[in-house]
């Protein structure tokens, strides 16, 4: 049975008719056409699908799209404003916080959440803040650097 949901995504409100079992990540990627968030597992461990739901980082593979009805989402595509990269994006670029880039959108969203809650994180706090996001390329060190420099920028 299909139902209609209304969601605000990156500031724009839209309505779609969907199946109850449609996962939020599939809704974003295939219905809305925002393919920035990725799918890297089915056990909610990799974090590649991380988006913000009402300001909180969530794994969009572990939510049904119906659960987002009436709520507000921010995806990686919504971070840059007026052609200006978000400081976390800029920092990932400057510090080489990515290689293949597949985990990067989720990693950036998790890092953004981390800095919103803790503007001055230690190395350990950064590592804990992104432990829900797996990266197989970087060994995380340049990501840690990126979050640190983003924190500086955002002060």
């Amino acid at each position, binding site marked *: 049975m299909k139902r209609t949901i209304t969601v605000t995504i990156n500031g724009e409100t839209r309505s779609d008719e969907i199946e109850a079992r449609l996962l939020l990540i599939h809704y974003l990627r295939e219905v809305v056409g925002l393919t*920035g968030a*990725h799918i890297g597992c089915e056990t909610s461990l990799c974090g590649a699908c991380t988006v913000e739901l009402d300001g909180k980082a969530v794994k969009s593979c572990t939510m049904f799209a119906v659960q987002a009805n009436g709520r507000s989402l921010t995806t990686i*595509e919504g971070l840059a404003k007026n052609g200006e990269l978000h400081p976390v994006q800029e920092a990932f670029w*400057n510090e080489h916080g990515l*290689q293949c880039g*597949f985990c990067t959108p989720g990693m950036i969203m998790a890092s953004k959440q981390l800095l919103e809650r803790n503007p001055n994180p230690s190395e350990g706090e950064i590592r804990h803040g992104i432990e829900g996001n797996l990266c197989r390329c970087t060994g995380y060190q*340049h990501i840690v650097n990126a979050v640190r420099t983003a924190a500086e920028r955002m002060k």
Partner: protein
Amino acid sequence: MATTAAPPATGKLVGKRLRRKEDPRLITGTATYVDDIKLPGMHHACIVRSPYAAARIKSIDAKAALETPGVVAVYTGADTKEVGPVPCGASLPGLRVPHHYILATDRVYFVGHPVAVVVAGDKYVARDAADSIEVDYDVLPAAADPEKALTPGAPAVHPEWPDNTAFTYHQEGGDIAQAFAEADVIVKQRITSQRLIPTPMETRGVVADWKPGDKALTLYSSTQIPHLLRSLVAGMLGLAENKTRVVTPEVGGGFGCKLNVYAEEALMSFVSMKLGKPVKWIESRRENYVATIHGRGHVDYLEIAAKKDGTILGLKLKLIQDLGAYHQLLTPVIPTLSVLMMPGLYRFRNVTADIVGVFTNCVPTDAYRGAGRPEATHAIERMVDMLAAELKLDPADIRLKNFIQPEEFPFATATGLTYDSGQYDLPLRKALEIGGYAALRAEQQTARVAGKLMGIGIATYGEICAFGPSPATPAGGWESATVKVDPDGKVTVLTGSCHHGQGEETTFAQIAADELGIGLDDVVVFRGDTAIVQYGIGTFGSRGTAVGGPALYYALQNLKKKLKRYGESALGSDDVRYEAGQCICNKTGKTASLAQLAGASYRALKLPPDEEPGMQTTFFWEPPNFTFPFGAHLVVTEIDRDTGRIEIKRYVAVDDCGKIINPLIVDGQVHGGVAQGLGQALYEQVVYDDNGQLLSGELTDYAIPKATMMPWVESHHTETPSPVNPLGVKGVGEAGTIGCSPAVVNSVVDALSSLGVRHLDMPLTPEKIWNVIQQGARA
């Protein structure tokens, strides 16, 4: 911590710590990976896989699936028998190659073996229908462990070869009998290098798009080898290569597991050709763990012979390689790379090695980051440490004593290689200095007195990179580059390398910009589309920059020659030089810019003598040799006696990858490599039960390192240029992985040596260490 910035407008870019050109699309979520491709009329495939490691297929009932609304087709092995087989690119004398159908026909050989494919307009529907397919299996006994598979009476993986032996291989050099006869001491050990799952964050994925009108196939695949994939898939399907196009979009990590040709690539092509519609298949992580190759899977029996003073005389190896059920593209050659690397950085010239390749009812093994070299290095570096312990020598001293010396290069090894260049003591001495080795040893003494288990581990490694001279590789070991200058003077590089995260859009642009004297932003680097890029080999074996880079360099030299000839024509002089983005007349000082020269070449009004119009060159470069990077890693650990948990207190990596094009990217490669080496050393482990069920079948049970599990890596370098190529580069993709695992294990064994421990196999889980400590305490 060095912060990078936008590159300078001009000046030398090679050697600079520059941020990457490819990143803007990746950090904004606007890059295109396979799963992001959406074609008109596209259908979705779901694959039914065997839950059994060994079974006869009695029947397949797809009636319910075919009746599911939205399902357009179901295919089984009976439909696809004519396609393929899945290719094995390796040839070894006497190699037994089972016929590898793209879908199982009468029998399944491993958990995950594809049995049927369901196609529907909607992927949710395809998944539902796949569930309704009933396969009746007659379950057979399985052989899941390579050593057990070799014992008489073990279940035969392939009934036609009851001994489960796919091949045996022997190589020797020098006089091993003499070496062992002269030895004062012989150390023996069984050392395993466990099966690992490569786990790129992006699983595999394929979109096949058959255009019935053109009778042409476009195959989008997350692969490291687009051109080889085109050749091989075209062959599997009986298509002409010029009617087969492979497009490699963004690739979310490969680490060797996408250096392959998989059943699904041909299967989706087959389906698209049958249906005349584009078909997408995206591997789930579950599938990725059971159906994409695994790495490693060694059991090594080693013996090292030495003099009392620590001089190494020779090494014997018996290597049992777990191949899995089939040969994928390079499966049987991976252990032969281990044999090539057996001498490591050491001067001894006597080796003998025997490999037994064993079939098991498990997913095939193949290249995973380092492919054969981490296994070899791990074994040698453990043996050297055990030898040092036996002789009560310092592990650093015994290495320094045995290193090949700088004046001995090029050095011919006992395994038939010629090492290009090296100053092997440099990274070790540097690592010891940075680590404060003497002070660490003193600290360790104090710690021991206080009852603490502190360890200091050293591993030095040599690597064989830049695969490779064509005679040494199944498909050709050269690489290609095209450089095009458009009429506006902007430059496009088409490389046959197929980077997937290594940053070659940036490093290649640095090389091109420097050679042409233009800015980084004036260069675009393009790869991964066989319809656009000239034939190439691909990115693996640390060859991207080490083989693709020189190809680009030579293409640029030819381009500069051509530019000079146009410059001579434009400036009316034969005394012209190309410099800083323009041709300059040495006599008059008059100049013609790159844009003017390129423009003139396309207008073709004043063609230089014997010159063709257009400003483009292509170069296929055949490397004369491999390159041999090297390095030293030093790891300080402390072990919690109560729990067996290992804490890494210091990690110092000194890597020599020849000339460095971009230090930022090189550090990133080292960090990532170390993470994968550390994964093997401490966490990662494929667990098959005796029936061939994969128990570590998801990220919930297979632990790749998280941010919290990684130490801070102090990454340093020495730079010994390679004489093999004009850039002096050697390659760095696999270095960290190779150096890491022996350094970590040596450190942990060092920490536990006071309890009488001389060797431990990976992964060093807390439970394993705790058990060792309990035994030590009892002893």
